[in-house]
């Protein structure tokens, strides 16, 4: 499997070639190739145990790869111990030294490299993370968010070629996490260092990263920009793990130029662009047709006549609704597929759309994607929740 985040041949790219890790008989990371462009914000996204942290630790040198090589620019660092690699890590638990104050924590890397006058740099770095007033406190006197910023400062002050972040926001509450996501993104833009960020939070990955590698069971499922992954998931795992997807089992019944026509159970005909179907599309082939809940519109069955021509339509009955402020989420049972999810913005609410009401779901066929039917339709659903 060859995955390339970029085609650029920058001198500071991180390149993993055929890297894998085996613990006894357990294959934590399947052999994978990955290139992270210099200066980019790259996310390794996956559920716990998918091998993303192991991959990160192999780049840091904390884990020795079973096979493969790690290249920083043109330099092979596979055999180097962590303290000889121009790479720094922000650990999941921060791992701040409890016996040293914030100043000494941040200065630690500089001092180990024999730099005597650290005062100016430490001051600047503490200002960057807005902790200038806390230099003489001990880590345990700081809040979680402040400790997290110290951990970032302690790693960044060394001007690493690559900054590795291992679920650095996992321990923070939601509001602080949002704030720190923006903060980290700001710092990354400011210092221009390559960030490789490991997370299980798809929202976090999409907010921060320029490109994302979605990992599952030790392999990279798909790699791309957040928008690309969301709009064109290549596997059911990615479709379900990144956001929510409605996946409908269908069979190809025809093709008209760029438009493929498929038929679901109950004879419901849908069309999708051939370019967005990653599976073979010969007549009679099984295809999973996917559409994101927010791309669908919902109309009461009585208004079916007002739906413009050329849209995909699925009739059904509302099984449940939940009002969440900006939108209302509907669960619709249909002959084509049970449990279709639809998110409708709360602009004009139709009072008839209550559980039990007959409705028609409709959407622009361009928003439909197709996946091979040979995979688990529910893959990634549990991992995402």
């Amino acid at each position, binding site marked *: 499997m060859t995955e390339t985040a970029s085609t650029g041949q920058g001198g500071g790219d991180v390149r993993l070639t055929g890297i894998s890790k085996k613990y006894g008989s357990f294959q934590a990371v399947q052999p994978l190739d990955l290139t992270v462009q210099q200066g980019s914000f790259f996310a390794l996204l996956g559920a716990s145990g998918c091998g993303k942290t192991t991959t990160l630790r192999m780049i840091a040198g*904390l884990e020795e790869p079973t096979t493969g090589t790690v290249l920083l620019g043109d330099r092979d660092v596979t055999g180097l111990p962590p*303290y*000889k690699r121009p*790479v720094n890590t922000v*650990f999941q*638990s921060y*791992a701040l*030294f409890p016996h040293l104050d914030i100043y000494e924590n941040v200065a*630690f890397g500089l001092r180990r490299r024999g730099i005597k006058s650290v005062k100016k740099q430490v001051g600047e770095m503490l200002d960057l993370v807005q902790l200038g007033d806390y230099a003489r406190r001990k880590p345990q006197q700081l809040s979680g968010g402040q400790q997290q910023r110290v951990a970032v400062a302690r*790693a960044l002050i060394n001007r690493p070629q690559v900054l590795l972040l291992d679920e650095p926001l996992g321990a923070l509450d939601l509001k602080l996490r949002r704030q720190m996501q923006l903060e980290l993104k700001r710092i990354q833009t400011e210092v221009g260092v390559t960030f490789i960020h490991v997370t299980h939070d798809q929202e976090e990955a999409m907010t921060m990263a320029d490109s994302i590698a979605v990992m599952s069971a030790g392999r990279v499922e798909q790699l791309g920009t957040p928008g690309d992954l969301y709009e064109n998931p290549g596997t059911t795992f990615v479709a379900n793990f990144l956001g929510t997807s409605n996946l409908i089992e269908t069979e190809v019944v025809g093709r008209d130029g760029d438009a493929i026509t498929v038929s679901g159970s109950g004879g419901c005909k849908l069309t999708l662009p051939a370019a967005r179907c990653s599976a073979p599309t010969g007549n009679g082939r099984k295809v999973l047709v996917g559409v994101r809940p927010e791309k669908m519109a919902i109309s009461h069955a009585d208004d079916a006549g007002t739906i413009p021509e050329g849209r995909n339509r699925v009739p059904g009955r509302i099984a449940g609704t939940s009002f969440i402020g900006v939108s209302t989420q509907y669960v619709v049972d249909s002959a084509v597929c049970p449990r279709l999810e639809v998110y409708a913005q709360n602009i004009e609410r139709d009072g008839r759309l209550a559980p039990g009401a007959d409705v028609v779901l409709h959407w622009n066929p361009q928003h439909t994607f197709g996946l091979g039917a040979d995979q688990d339709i529910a893959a990634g659903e549990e991992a995402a929740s």
Partner: protein
Amino acid sequence: MTATTAPPDAPPVTGGEPPRRRAFRRGRLVPYWLLLPGILWLIVFFLVPLVYQASTSVQTGSLENGFQVTWHFQTYWDALQQYYPQFLRSLLYAAVATLLCLVVGYPLAYLIAFRAGRHRNLLLVLVIAPFFTSFLIRTLAWKTILADGGPVVGFLSSAHILDITAALGWTSGHRVLATPLAVVTGLTYNFLPFMILPLYTSLERIDHRLHEAAGDLYATPWTTFRKVTFPMSLPGVVSGTLLTFIPSSGDYVNAQLLGSADTKMIGSVIQSQFLTVLDYPTAAALSFILMAVVLFVVTFYIRRAGTEELL
């Protein structure tokens, strides 16, 4: 020992108070009830003997005519003048034994805490296994181990180690028994678990990820030890050295069984003054001087180590 049997929620004797107030007062008293057994224990087995010995130390008289409190503080001065070599020797032996315990115990505690894996509990049991045998018997066993002409002495002698120790005045001739080396060896052996256990506890608490973080921040394994592991284990070092130094400076069994008249420690003097010479005032005065010296040394040490808050 009445306190342990008295239930803390015994019905109150006064019935006139409103129930809520009664419950409140009873709740406030619970901590004191819980403290009572400990306080009683300390009064009976610590404070009373202490006061009794203090009064003994300023008495004069003889066994036949009885002892009277005469506030004879001269005893202290006389005792110190007569036995200061034994005092100094005790402190020296205890310090050397403590240092040896640290040198031997630290690597062992480190190994158990970080490298032992699933053998960790077994190794800890082995560390405390000597306690299953009496202190006296273990010390007597060293008499056999270090016996003249035994394998240990034979090896040390043929390896010319005894020549070096003899030059330093730790051994004499081709003997180990009845020399300072034997006494210090015995002390080191007997108090080693008291060093290892606190060291282990403080090392074991260190998050392994801190080692990874140090390595990630350009620290070599040795620098990681110097800058992270050792400073973080200081509370263990301090309590381990105290737990070793304090009892060994007052010990008399090792000096008695493994040493000679020339290696007598202050503990042996106190013991013989109490039980053989029957000069109770001198024995009591010596005890108080030892206590004061140890307290002084320990306070100075803790101040210097700067770990008051870590204890």
